């Protein structure tokens, strides 16, 4: 099972209206989520490796990557050495 709050945040900021709210006042927007300081820093800092390690779903990370204008090469480099399935539940059936 994927961790809920961090995935919910990355899910919500896919949507233009929510993203605008987030960008306008990040602190107010983030107050609605149960997130650690590390999670907040990763989302705000474009740290896709940290987000991956926290268990953000890859499809949500892809949208996030495009929003943050991270090139495909840079994305692969950022995730270099990580396994497909960890920590995504160990397996898609997990």
């Amino acid at each position, binding site marked *: *099972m*994927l961790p*809920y709050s961090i*995935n*919910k945040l990355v*899910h919500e900021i*896919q*949507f*233009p*209206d929510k993203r605008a709210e987030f960008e306008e006042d990040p602190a107010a927007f983030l107050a609605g989520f149960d997130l650690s300081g590390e999670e907040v820093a990763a989302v705000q800092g474009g740290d896709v490796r940290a987000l*991956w390690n926290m268990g953000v*779903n*890859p*499809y*949500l*990370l*892809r*949208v996030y*990557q495009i929003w943050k204008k991270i090139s*495909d090469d840079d*994305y*692969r480099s950022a*995730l*270099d*050495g*990580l*396994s*497909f*399935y960890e920590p*995504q*539940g160990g*397996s*898609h*059936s*997990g």
Partner: protein
Amino acid sequence: MAEVVAVFAATHTPLFLLRRNDPAPEVQDEVFSCYEGMGKAMLDRGAEALVVFENDHLHSLFLDRHPSLAVGVKSTYHNVASEAYMPEVEGGRKGDAALGLYLVNALLQSDFDPAMCQEIEFDHSIVSPLYLMGDPAIPIVPILQNTVAPPLAPARRAYQLGIAVRRALEVYDKVERVAVLATGGPSHWIGTPELGRIDEEWDESVIAPLREGNAKSLSEWSQEQIDAGGNGGNELRNWLSAAALAGDTRAKVLCYRPEPCWFLGVTALEWPVGPAL
């Protein structure tokens, strides 16, 4: 009683829209003409409804209440707001709400438990192939299976789903002709460390049994075998539903074109419609 007049599978990707003209011209010609041909065939064969096996990518559906199986029962669908680059059809794409509701009921009678969805919209799973097909104006019933967030149902459920939908259509009397489309597949890696990888061997390992009329063997695959095709490989479930619906006949490969610009081997299949299983 509704006759199934076409059963296709066709790859989906947002890159069909975002990087539409990046591949070599001959690749574009091959792929676009193939998809246009599928759209034209649905219209030429008089399809009055289009049942689409597909999967949302956490746009319309989310982990707060994430169904393994869902059926849309709307009369109009718009694009999800989170994929704003997708072309919208004026007034939205039409849905066949009556057929959707009928299938929900029929699936319940067949021991499936679909979520009935009155508020979902289309993501690239359905928009990207339909757009390349020329957006045939055929009312749609989307049948969504979870292929994106574990835990996932075993592949055999997708096969059984196709059988159940076919049996339901055979006794449906509100339309005479139905087309079926399964979107997605084959191997691809999206948002993972292997982003953009294509595994032609894995692709052939799933296409070959389909060509031989043996989707049943794939329905017995373990999650580990499916995972070897990347997170996108899980969309094999949509293909298995279509194959089983067609009677697990020998699929004709209309197109298989590995295309790095689009992160996958673009695949289009057609199953001749055999007796219901």
